[in-house]
Protein backbone atom coordinates (compact mmCIF):
# COMPACT_ATOMS: atom_id res chain seq x y z
CA UNK A 1 0.00 0.00 0.00
CA UNK A 2 2.86 2.34 0.91
CA UNK A 3 4.33 2.15 -2.60
CA UNK A 4 0.99 3.12 -4.16
CA UNK A 5 0.78 6.08 -1.76
CA UNK A 6 4.28 7.12 -2.88
CA UNK A 7 3.22 6.88 -6.56
CA UNK A 8 0.10 8.95 -5.79
CA UNK A 9 2.31 11.55 -4.07
CA UNK A 10 4.56 11.83 -7.16
CA UNK A 11 1.46 12.07 -9.35
CA UNK A 12 0.14 15.01 -7.29
CA UNK A 13 3.52 16.78 -7.65
CA UNK A 14 3.44 16.18 -11.42
CA UNK A 15 -0.08 17.58 -11.67
CA UNK A 16 1.05 20.72 -9.87
CA UNK A 17 4.02 21.14 -12.21
CA UNK A 18 2.00 20.63 -15.42
CA UNK A 19 -0.79 23.03 -14.40
CA UNK A 20 -1.00 24.42 -17.94
CA UNK A 21 -2.62 21.17 -19.11
CA UNK A 22 -5.66 22.02 -17.05
CA UNK A 23 -6.05 25.48 -18.62
CA UNK A 24 -7.34 24.15 -21.93
CA UNK A 25 -9.79 21.85 -20.20
CA UNK A 26 -10.96 24.67 -17.93
CA UNK A 27 -11.75 26.79 -21.01
CA UNK A 28 -13.72 23.91 -22.51
CA UNK A 29 -15.55 23.35 -19.21
CA UNK A 30 -16.56 27.01 -19.20
CA UNK A 31 -17.73 26.88 -22.84
CA UNK A 32 -19.77 23.75 -22.21
CA UNK A 33 -21.57 25.11 -19.16
CA UNK A 34 -22.10 28.45 -20.87
CA UNK A 35 -23.70 26.84 -23.94
CA UNK A 36 -25.98 24.73 -21.77
CA UNK A 37 -26.90 27.75 -19.67
CA UNK A 38 -27.82 29.62 -22.88
CA UNK A 39 -29.82 26.65 -24.17
CA UNK A 40 -31.76 25.93 -20.98
CA UNK A 41 -32.44 29.65 -20.44
CA UNK A 42 -34.29 29.71 -23.77
CA UNK A 43 -36.19 26.49 -22.99
CA UNK A 44 -37.33 27.41 -19.49
CA UNK A 45 -39.87 30.15 -18.93
CA UNK A 46 -40.33 29.94 -15.15
CA UNK A 47 -41.69 26.40 -15.38
CA UNK A 48 -40.40 22.96 -14.36
CA UNK A 49 -39.47 20.23 -16.81
CA UNK A 50 -39.39 16.62 -15.58
CA UNK A 51 -39.31 17.95 -12.01
CA UNK A 52 -36.30 20.26 -12.50
CA UNK A 53 -36.36 24.06 -12.61
CA UNK A 54 -33.77 26.19 -14.43
CA UNK A 55 -31.51 26.64 -11.37
CA UNK A 56 -31.49 22.92 -10.66
CA UNK A 57 -30.84 22.09 -14.30
CA UNK A 58 -27.79 24.37 -14.57
CA UNK A 59 -26.35 23.04 -11.31
CA UNK A 60 -27.11 19.53 -12.56
CA UNK A 61 -25.03 20.07 -15.74
CA UNK A 62 -22.23 21.72 -13.70
CA UNK A 63 -22.11 18.58 -11.52
CA UNK A 64 -22.27 15.93 -14.25
CA UNK A 65 -19.52 17.74 -16.13
CA UNK A 66 -17.51 17.84 -12.93
CA UNK A 67 -17.50 14.03 -12.81
CA UNK A 68 -16.46 13.82 -16.46
CA UNK A 69 -13.65 16.35 -16.11
CA UNK A 70 -12.26 14.72 -12.96
CA UNK A 71 -12.22 11.09 -14.05
CA UNK A 72 -8.75 11.13 -15.56
CA UNK A 73 -10.13 10.51 -19.04
CA UNK A 74 -6.53 10.41 -20.34
CA UNK A 75 -6.33 6.88 -18.94
CA UNK A 76 -8.00 5.44 -22.05
CA UNK A 77 -5.42 6.97 -24.38
CA UNK A 78 -2.57 5.98 -22.09
CA UNK A 79 -3.66 2.33 -21.85
CA UNK A 80 -4.30 2.22 -25.56
CA UNK A 81 -0.88 3.65 -26.35
CA UNK A 82 1.02 1.47 -23.84
CA UNK A 83 -0.55 -1.73 -25.18
CA UNK A 84 -0.22 -0.83 -28.86
CA UNK A 85 3.35 0.45 -28.60
CA UNK A 86 4.39 -2.52 -26.47
CA UNK A 87 5.81 -0.26 -23.77
CA UNK A 88 3.56 -2.09 -21.31
CA UNK A 89 6.18 -4.87 -21.35
CA UNK A 90 8.54 -2.66 -19.31
CA UNK A 91 5.87 -2.17 -16.66
CA UNK A 92 5.29 -5.88 -16.18
CA UNK A 93 8.69 -6.31 -14.56
CA UNK A 94 8.07 -3.70 -11.88
CA UNK A 95 7.17 -4.71 -8.31
CA UNK A 96 3.56 -3.57 -8.31
CA UNK A 97 0.14 -4.46 -9.61
CA UNK A 98 -0.12 -2.69 -12.96
CA UNK A 99 -3.80 -1.75 -12.55
CA UNK A 100 -3.46 -0.26 -9.07
CA UNK A 101 -0.23 1.49 -10.05
CA UNK A 102 -2.08 3.22 -12.90
CA UNK A 103 -4.83 4.30 -10.52
CA UNK A 104 -2.33 5.61 -7.97
CA UNK A 105 -0.45 7.36 -10.80
CA UNK A 106 -3.62 9.16 -11.91
CA UNK A 107 -4.76 10.14 -8.41
CA UNK A 108 -2.72 13.33 -8.59
CA UNK A 109 -4.39 14.41 -11.82
CA UNK A 110 -7.80 13.49 -10.39
CA UNK A 111 -7.20 15.36 -7.11
CA UNK A 112 -5.88 18.45 -8.90
CA UNK A 113 -8.73 18.43 -11.45
CA UNK A 114 -11.30 17.87 -8.69
CA UNK A 115 -10.12 20.90 -6.74
CA UNK A 116 -10.03 23.18 -9.82
CA UNK A 117 -13.27 22.03 -11.42
CA UNK A 118 -15.24 21.89 -8.14
CA UNK A 119 -14.33 25.51 -7.59
CA UNK A 120 -15.26 26.35 -11.20
CA UNK A 121 -18.55 24.45 -10.94
CA UNK A 122 -19.55 26.32 -7.78
CA UNK A 123 -18.56 29.73 -9.16
CA UNK A 124 -20.30 29.14 -12.50
CA UNK A 125 -23.45 27.81 -10.82
CA UNK A 126 -23.58 30.86 -8.54
CA UNK A 127 -22.86 33.35 -11.34
CA UNK A 128 -25.28 31.87 -13.88
CA UNK A 129 -28.29 30.97 -11.72
CA UNK A 130 -27.47 31.77 -8.08
CA UNK A 131 -27.51 29.41 -5.10
CA UNK A 132 -29.57 26.23 -5.02
CA UNK A 133 -32.71 26.82 -3.01
CA UNK A 134 -33.02 24.50 -0.03
CA UNK A 135 -29.51 23.06 -0.24
CA UNK A 136 -28.83 21.26 3.05
CA UNK A 137 -25.17 20.97 4.22
CA UNK A 138 -26.10 17.57 5.71
CA UNK A 139 -25.93 16.31 2.12
CA UNK A 140 -22.22 17.15 1.73
CA UNK A 141 -20.69 13.89 3.11
CA UNK A 142 -23.07 11.82 0.94
CA UNK A 143 -22.25 13.95 -2.10
CA UNK A 144 -18.50 13.52 -1.54
CA UNK A 145 -18.81 9.73 -1.23
CA UNK A 146 -21.05 9.54 -4.30
CA UNK A 147 -18.64 11.65 -6.41
CA UNK A 148 -15.64 9.58 -5.30
CA UNK A 149 -17.42 6.36 -6.25
CA UNK A 150 -18.49 7.82 -9.61
CA UNK A 151 -15.02 9.00 -10.50
CA UNK A 152 -13.40 5.71 -9.45
CA UNK A 153 -15.98 3.64 -11.32
CA UNK A 154 -15.59 5.73 -14.46
CA UNK A 155 -11.80 5.51 -14.22
CA UNK A 156 -11.76 1.70 -14.08
CA UNK A 157 -14.31 1.36 -16.88
CA UNK A 158 -12.21 3.68 -19.07
CA UNK A 159 -9.14 1.68 -18.17
CA UNK A 160 -10.84 -1.59 -19.14
CA UNK A 161 -11.84 -0.09 -22.49
CA UNK A 162 -8.25 1.10 -23.05
CA UNK A 163 -6.97 -2.39 -22.24
CA UNK A 164 -9.24 -3.83 -24.92
CA UNK A 165 -6.33 -2.90 -27.19
CA UNK A 166 -4.97 -6.34 -26.18
CA UNK A 167 -7.86 -7.92 -28.06
CA UNK A 168 -8.85 -5.45 -30.79
CA UNK A 169 -6.72 -3.62 -33.31
CA UNK A 170 -8.98 -0.56 -33.05
CA UNK A 171 -10.72 0.00 -29.72
CA UNK A 172 -11.52 3.74 -30.01
CA UNK A 173 -15.15 3.10 -31.08
CA UNK A 174 -15.74 1.35 -27.71
CA UNK A 175 -14.50 4.52 -26.01
CA UNK A 176 -16.81 6.67 -28.16
CA UNK A 177 -19.81 4.47 -27.45
CA UNK A 178 -19.13 4.30 -23.70
CA UNK A 179 -18.73 8.07 -23.51
CA UNK A 180 -21.92 8.68 -25.43
CA UNK A 181 -23.88 6.29 -23.18
CA UNK A 182 -22.74 8.50 -20.30
CA UNK A 183 -23.76 11.58 -22.32
CA UNK A 184 -27.31 10.55 -23.07
CA UNK A 185 -28.12 8.54 -19.95
CA UNK A 186 -27.47 11.18 -17.34
CA UNK A 187 -24.84 13.70 -18.34
CA UNK A 188 -26.70 16.02 -20.70
CA UNK A 189 -30.16 15.44 -19.23
CA UNK A 190 -31.41 13.78 -16.03
CA UNK A 191 -32.93 10.35 -16.58
CA UNK A 192 -36.29 11.77 -15.46
CA UNK A 193 -36.54 13.20 -19.02
CA UNK A 194 -36.74 9.65 -20.40
CA UNK A 195 -39.79 7.36 -20.44
CA UNK A 196 -40.66 5.67 -17.13
CA UNK A 197 -39.75 2.19 -18.34
CA UNK A 198 -36.26 3.44 -19.33
CA UNK A 199 -35.80 5.18 -15.98
CA UNK A 200 -36.58 1.90 -14.19
CA UNK A 201 -33.67 0.22 -15.98
CA UNK A 202 -31.23 3.14 -16.00
CA UNK A 203 -31.37 3.61 -12.22
CA UNK A 204 -29.37 0.40 -11.92
CA UNK A 205 -26.92 0.87 -14.79
CA UNK A 206 -23.43 2.35 -14.33
CA UNK A 207 -23.88 5.08 -16.98
CA UNK A 208 -26.55 6.85 -14.93
CA UNK A 209 -24.94 6.00 -11.62
CA UNK A 210 -21.76 7.78 -12.76
CA UNK A 211 -23.45 11.04 -13.79
CA UNK A 212 -27.10 11.29 -12.72
CA UNK A 213 -26.72 9.75 -9.22
CA UNK A 214 -24.23 12.27 -7.73
CA UNK A 215 -25.62 15.27 -9.64
CA UNK A 216 -29.16 14.62 -8.44
CA UNK A 217 -27.79 14.31 -4.92
CA UNK A 218 -26.54 17.89 -5.19
CA UNK A 219 -29.62 19.45 -6.76
CA UNK A 220 -32.40 17.41 -5.11
CA UNK A 221 -30.97 15.73 -2.05
CA UNK A 222 -32.98 13.12 -0.17
CA UNK A 223 -31.79 10.37 2.17
CA UNK A 224 -33.91 7.97 0.18
CA UNK A 225 -32.00 8.75 -3.03
CA UNK A 226 -28.60 8.70 -1.29
CA UNK A 227 -29.21 5.37 0.40
CA UNK A 228 -30.54 3.86 -2.82
CA UNK A 229 -27.70 4.90 -5.12
CA UNK A 230 -24.57 4.78 -2.95
CA UNK A 231 -24.66 0.97 -2.39
CA UNK A 232 -25.31 0.51 -6.13
CA UNK A 233 -22.39 2.78 -6.97
CA UNK A 234 -20.14 0.88 -4.53
CA UNK A 235 -21.20 -2.43 -6.09
CA UNK A 236 -20.50 -1.21 -9.64
CA UNK A 237 -17.20 0.26 -8.46
CA UNK A 238 -16.04 -3.16 -7.23
CA UNK A 239 -17.23 -4.73 -10.49
CA UNK A 240 -15.36 -2.08 -12.51
CA UNK A 241 -12.10 -2.83 -10.63
CA UNK A 242 -12.61 -6.59 -11.10
CA UNK A 243 -13.34 -6.04 -14.79
CA UNK A 244 -10.11 -4.06 -15.26
CA UNK A 245 -8.12 -6.78 -13.44
CA UNK A 246 -9.77 -9.48 -15.55
CA UNK A 247 -9.26 -7.70 -18.90
CA UNK A 248 -5.63 -7.04 -17.96
CA UNK A 249 -4.82 -10.53 -16.65
CA UNK A 250 -6.29 -12.21 -19.74
CA UNK A 251 -4.92 -9.66 -22.17
CA UNK A 252 -1.39 -9.61 -20.85
CA UNK A 253 -1.01 -13.28 -21.88
CA UNK A 254 -1.17 -12.08 -25.47
CA UNK A 255 1.93 -9.91 -25.08
CA UNK A 256 4.96 -11.13 -27.00
CA UNK A 257 8.24 -9.47 -26.08
CA UNK A 258 10.91 -9.54 -28.76
CA UNK A 259 13.94 -8.05 -27.06
CA UNK A 260 14.59 -4.36 -26.21
Amino acid sequence: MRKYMAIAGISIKNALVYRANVTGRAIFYFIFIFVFFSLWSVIYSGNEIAGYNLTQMIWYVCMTELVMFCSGSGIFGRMNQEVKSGSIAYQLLRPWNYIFKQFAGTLGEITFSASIFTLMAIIMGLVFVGPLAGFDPVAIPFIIVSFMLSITMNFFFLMSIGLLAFYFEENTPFFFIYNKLLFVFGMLIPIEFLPLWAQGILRYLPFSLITWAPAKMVVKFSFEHALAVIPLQAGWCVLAVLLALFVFSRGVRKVNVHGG
Partner: protein
Amino acid sequence: MFMEVKKHIKLIGKYFIFNLAAITEYRTSFIVQVFGMALNNASFAFFWWVLFDKVGAGIGGYDFRDVMFLWAVASTGFGLAHVFFANANRISGMIITGELDTYLLQPKNPLINSISARMSATSWGDVLYGIILMALIKASIGMWLMFGIGIFTAALLITSITVVGQSLTFYFGNMEAVGRSLREFTITFSIYPESIFKGPLKVLIMTAIPIGFITHVPLRLAHEFSWGIFFLLLGVAAAYCLFAFVIYMNGLKKYESGNLIITRM
Protein backbone atom coordinates in the same frame (compact mmCIF):
# COMPACT_ATOMS: atom_id res chain seq x y z
CA MET B 1 -1.33 33.08 -59.93
CA PHE B 2 -3.96 30.87 -61.63
CA MET B 3 -1.32 28.23 -62.42
CA GLU B 4 -0.16 28.28 -58.77
CA VAL B 5 -3.71 27.70 -57.52
CA LYS B 6 -4.16 24.90 -60.05
CA LYS B 7 -0.89 23.27 -58.96
CA HIS B 8 -1.88 23.35 -55.31
CA ILE B 9 -5.35 21.93 -55.97
CA LYS B 10 -3.56 19.13 -57.80
CA LEU B 11 -1.30 18.65 -54.77
CA ILE B 12 -4.32 18.41 -52.43
CA GLY B 13 -5.78 15.79 -54.80
CA LYS B 14 -2.55 13.74 -54.77
CA TYR B 15 -2.36 13.88 -50.97
CA PHE B 16 -6.00 12.79 -50.82
CA ILE B 17 -5.33 9.71 -52.95
CA PHE B 18 -2.20 8.70 -51.01
CA ASN B 19 -3.76 9.30 -47.61
CA LEU B 20 -6.90 7.40 -48.53
CA ALA B 21 -4.82 4.46 -49.73
CA ALA B 22 -2.87 4.56 -46.45
CA ILE B 23 -5.88 4.60 -44.11
CA THR B 24 -7.79 1.95 -46.05
CA GLU B 25 -4.81 -0.40 -45.89
CA TYR B 26 -6.23 -1.69 -42.58
CA ARG B 27 -9.75 -1.98 -43.92
CA THR B 28 -11.52 -3.43 -40.86
CA SER B 29 -9.98 -0.85 -38.59
CA PHE B 30 -11.05 1.91 -41.01
CA ILE B 31 -14.66 0.68 -41.22
CA VAL B 32 -14.90 0.28 -37.43
CA GLN B 33 -13.62 3.84 -36.96
CA VAL B 34 -16.04 5.29 -39.51
CA PHE B 35 -19.12 3.61 -38.03
CA GLY B 36 -17.93 4.26 -34.47
CA MET B 37 -17.79 7.98 -35.21
CA ALA B 38 -21.20 7.98 -36.93
CA LEU B 39 -22.70 6.21 -33.89
CA ASN B 40 -20.94 8.65 -31.60
CA ASN B 41 -22.61 11.60 -33.35
CA ALA B 42 -25.99 9.85 -33.30
CA SER B 43 -26.12 10.11 -29.50
CA PHE B 44 -26.66 13.85 -29.82
CA ALA B 45 -29.61 13.30 -32.14
CA PHE B 46 -31.09 11.18 -29.34
CA PHE B 47 -30.49 14.03 -26.87
CA TRP B 48 -32.30 16.54 -29.10
CA TRP B 49 -35.14 14.12 -29.80
CA VAL B 50 -35.74 13.64 -26.04
CA LEU B 51 -35.48 17.37 -25.45
CA PHE B 52 -37.97 18.36 -28.17
CA ASP B 53 -40.29 15.59 -27.03
CA LYS B 54 -40.21 16.83 -23.43
CA VAL B 55 -40.45 20.55 -24.23
CA GLY B 56 -43.22 19.91 -26.75
CA ALA B 57 -42.50 23.09 -28.74
CA GLY B 58 -39.78 24.78 -30.76
CA ILE B 59 -36.55 25.77 -29.04
CA GLY B 60 -35.43 29.31 -29.85
CA GLY B 61 -37.49 29.23 -33.06
CA TYR B 62 -35.91 25.95 -34.21
CA ASP B 63 -37.69 22.64 -34.65
CA PHE B 64 -36.07 19.20 -34.52
CA ARG B 65 -35.39 19.18 -38.27
CA ASP B 66 -33.63 22.55 -38.10
CA VAL B 67 -31.29 21.39 -35.33
CA MET B 68 -30.57 18.19 -37.25
CA PHE B 69 -29.73 20.32 -40.30
CA LEU B 70 -27.19 22.25 -38.19
CA TRP B 71 -25.73 18.91 -37.11
CA ALA B 72 -25.66 17.54 -40.66
CA VAL B 73 -23.80 20.57 -42.09
CA ALA B 74 -21.44 20.79 -39.10
CA SER B 75 -20.69 17.06 -39.14
CA THR B 76 -20.08 16.68 -42.89
CA GLY B 77 -18.27 20.04 -43.07
CA PHE B 78 -16.03 19.08 -40.13
CA GLY B 79 -15.51 15.67 -41.73
CA LEU B 80 -14.45 17.16 -45.07
CA ALA B 81 -12.10 19.60 -43.31
CA HIS B 82 -10.38 16.67 -41.58
CA VAL B 83 -10.41 14.39 -44.62
CA PHE B 84 -8.49 16.99 -46.64
CA PHE B 85 -6.70 19.11 -44.02
CA ALA B 86 -6.40 17.06 -40.81
CA ASN B 87 -2.88 18.36 -40.22
CA ALA B 88 -4.20 21.88 -39.60
CA ASN B 89 -4.72 20.75 -35.99
CA ARG B 90 -1.01 20.02 -35.73
CA ILE B 91 0.39 23.35 -36.93
CA SER B 92 1.25 24.43 -33.41
CA GLY B 93 2.98 21.12 -32.66
CA MET B 94 4.89 21.31 -35.95
CA ILE B 95 6.14 24.80 -35.12
CA ILE B 96 7.29 23.78 -31.65
CA THR B 97 9.06 20.58 -32.68
CA GLY B 98 10.61 22.09 -35.81
CA GLU B 99 8.76 19.60 -37.98
CA LEU B 100 7.84 22.43 -40.33
CA ASP B 101 11.38 22.36 -41.76
CA THR B 102 10.43 19.42 -43.96
CA TYR B 103 7.71 21.41 -45.71
CA LEU B 104 9.82 24.53 -46.09
CA LEU B 105 12.31 22.62 -48.21
CA GLN B 106 9.70 21.55 -50.73
CA PRO B 107 8.68 23.65 -53.77
CA LYS B 108 5.07 24.10 -52.66
CA ASN B 109 3.34 26.54 -50.35
CA PRO B 110 4.15 25.32 -46.80
CA LEU B 111 0.63 25.96 -45.48
CA ILE B 112 -1.19 23.97 -48.17
CA ASN B 113 1.54 21.35 -48.23
CA SER B 114 1.61 20.78 -44.48
CA ILE B 115 -2.12 20.81 -43.70
CA SER B 116 -2.98 18.43 -46.56
CA ALA B 117 -0.40 15.86 -45.55
CA ARG B 118 -2.66 13.90 -43.21
CA MET B 119 -6.18 12.48 -43.35
CA SER B 120 -8.28 11.57 -40.32
CA ALA B 121 -9.96 8.17 -40.71
CA THR B 122 -12.76 8.88 -38.23
CA SER B 123 -13.71 11.99 -40.20
CA TRP B 124 -15.20 9.78 -42.88
CA GLY B 125 -17.70 8.82 -40.18
CA ASP B 126 -18.57 12.50 -39.74
CA VAL B 127 -19.00 12.94 -43.51
CA LEU B 128 -21.26 9.90 -43.67
CA TYR B 129 -23.27 10.86 -40.58
CA GLY B 130 -24.30 14.24 -42.00
CA ILE B 131 -25.55 12.66 -45.23
CA ILE B 132 -27.48 9.92 -43.37
CA LEU B 133 -29.00 12.53 -41.08
CA MET B 134 -30.20 14.60 -44.04
CA ALA B 135 -31.87 11.52 -45.49
CA LEU B 136 -33.46 10.58 -42.16
CA ILE B 137 -35.04 14.00 -41.54
CA LYS B 138 -36.54 13.92 -45.03
CA ALA B 139 -34.95 17.27 -45.84
CA SER B 140 -36.58 19.54 -48.41
CA ILE B 141 -34.90 20.28 -51.75
CA GLY B 142 -33.88 23.71 -50.42
CA MET B 143 -32.22 22.06 -47.44
CA TRP B 144 -30.37 19.57 -49.66
CA LEU B 145 -29.14 22.38 -51.93
CA MET B 146 -27.89 24.44 -49.01
CA PHE B 147 -26.39 21.31 -47.47
CA GLY B 148 -24.47 20.69 -50.72
CA ILE B 149 -23.00 24.20 -50.65
CA GLY B 150 -22.85 24.66 -46.87
CA ILE B 151 -20.61 21.64 -46.27
CA PHE B 152 -17.88 23.17 -48.46
CA THR B 153 -18.07 26.64 -46.93
CA ALA B 154 -18.20 24.96 -43.50
CA ALA B 155 -15.09 22.88 -44.29
CA LEU B 156 -13.22 26.00 -45.46
CA LEU B 157 -14.28 28.04 -42.43
CA ILE B 158 -13.46 25.28 -39.92
CA THR B 159 -10.03 24.81 -41.50
CA SER B 160 -9.35 28.56 -41.63
CA ILE B 161 -10.38 29.11 -38.01
CA THR B 162 -8.16 26.18 -36.98
CA VAL B 163 -5.22 27.60 -38.97
CA VAL B 164 -5.66 31.03 -37.34
CA GLY B 165 -5.82 29.52 -33.82
CA GLN B 166 -2.88 27.21 -34.38
CA SER B 167 -0.76 29.89 -36.09
CA LEU B 168 -0.84 32.03 -32.95
CA THR B 169 2.10 29.87 -31.84
CA PHE B 170 4.27 31.73 -34.41
CA TYR B 171 3.54 34.96 -32.55
CA PHE B 172 3.09 34.07 -28.87
CA GLY B 173 4.90 30.79 -28.18
CA ASN B 174 3.11 27.53 -27.45
CA MET B 175 -0.60 28.23 -28.08
CA GLU B 176 -1.60 24.61 -28.69
CA ALA B 177 -4.22 24.65 -25.90
CA VAL B 178 -5.71 27.89 -27.22
CA GLY B 179 -5.82 26.49 -30.76
CA ARG B 180 -7.54 23.34 -29.52
CA SER B 181 -10.03 25.34 -27.45
CA LEU B 182 -10.82 27.55 -30.44
CA ARG B 183 -11.63 24.44 -32.47
CA GLU B 184 -13.90 23.09 -29.70
CA PHE B 185 -15.49 26.54 -29.44
CA THR B 186 -16.14 26.51 -33.20
CA ILE B 187 -17.77 23.08 -33.20
CA THR B 188 -19.78 23.61 -30.03
CA PHE B 189 -21.25 26.93 -31.11
CA SER B 190 -22.18 25.72 -34.58
CA ILE B 191 -24.42 22.86 -33.40
CA TYR B 192 -26.85 24.83 -31.23
CA PRO B 193 -29.63 27.17 -32.36
CA GLU B 194 -28.36 30.64 -33.25
CA SER B 195 -31.04 32.31 -31.12
CA ILE B 196 -29.63 30.99 -27.83
CA PHE B 197 -26.54 33.17 -28.26
CA LYS B 198 -27.02 36.84 -27.51
CA GLY B 199 -25.18 40.14 -27.15
CA PRO B 200 -21.41 40.37 -27.71
CA LEU B 201 -21.12 36.61 -28.21
CA LYS B 202 -23.48 36.75 -31.16
CA VAL B 203 -21.47 39.63 -32.65
CA LEU B 204 -18.27 37.61 -32.15
CA ILE B 205 -19.56 34.50 -33.93
CA MET B 206 -20.81 36.58 -36.83
CA THR B 207 -17.65 38.65 -37.29
CA ALA B 208 -14.15 37.96 -35.87
CA ILE B 209 -14.70 34.19 -35.57
CA PRO B 210 -17.42 33.59 -38.18
CA ILE B 211 -18.87 30.43 -36.64
CA GLY B 212 -22.40 31.60 -37.47
CA PHE B 213 -21.58 31.20 -41.18
CA ILE B 214 -20.74 27.50 -40.72
CA THR B 215 -24.28 26.26 -40.07
CA HIS B 216 -26.66 29.04 -39.06
CA VAL B 217 -26.47 31.08 -42.28
CA PRO B 218 -26.92 27.99 -44.53
CA LEU B 219 -30.05 27.12 -42.48
CA ARG B 220 -31.41 30.66 -42.92
CA LEU B 221 -30.78 30.34 -46.66
CA ALA B 222 -32.48 26.93 -46.76
CA HIS B 223 -35.59 28.50 -45.20
CA GLU B 224 -35.54 31.77 -47.09
CA PHE B 225 -33.09 32.07 -49.93
CA SER B 226 -31.55 35.43 -50.70
CA TRP B 227 -28.79 36.03 -53.26
CA GLY B 228 -27.32 38.76 -51.06
CA ILE B 229 -26.85 36.45 -48.06
CA PHE B 230 -25.70 33.64 -50.32
CA PHE B 231 -22.89 35.76 -51.78
CA LEU B 232 -22.10 37.03 -48.29
CA LEU B 233 -21.63 33.40 -47.20
CA LEU B 234 -19.27 32.68 -50.10
CA GLY B 235 -17.45 35.97 -49.53
CA VAL B 236 -16.95 35.37 -45.80
CA ALA B 237 -15.63 31.84 -46.45
CA ALA B 238 -13.17 33.14 -49.08
CA ALA B 239 -12.13 36.15 -47.00
CA TYR B 240 -11.47 34.04 -43.91
CA CYS B 241 -9.36 31.60 -45.96
CA LEU B 242 -7.30 34.56 -47.14
CA PHE B 243 -7.07 35.93 -43.59
CA ALA B 244 -5.83 32.54 -42.29
CA PHE B 245 -3.29 32.40 -45.15
CA VAL B 246 -1.95 35.86 -44.32
CA ILE B 247 -1.75 35.12 -40.58
CA TYR B 248 0.16 31.90 -41.28
CA MET B 249 2.53 33.32 -43.90
CA ASN B 250 3.36 36.38 -41.76
CA GLY B 251 3.90 34.15 -38.77
CA LEU B 252 6.18 31.92 -40.78
CA LYS B 253 8.67 34.81 -41.01
CA LYS B 254 9.09 34.48 -37.23
CA TYR B 255 9.66 30.71 -37.39
CA GLU B 256 12.97 29.46 -36.07
CA SER B 257 14.13 26.22 -37.58
CA GLY B 258 15.10 23.32 -35.32
CA ASN B 259 17.49 20.47 -36.07
CA LEU B 260 14.93 17.70 -35.87
CA ILE B 261 15.52 14.80 -38.22
CA ILE B 262 12.30 13.05 -39.18
CA THR B 263 11.27 10.48 -41.71
CA ARG B 264 8.03 10.96 -43.63
CA MET B 265 6.64 7.57 -44.56
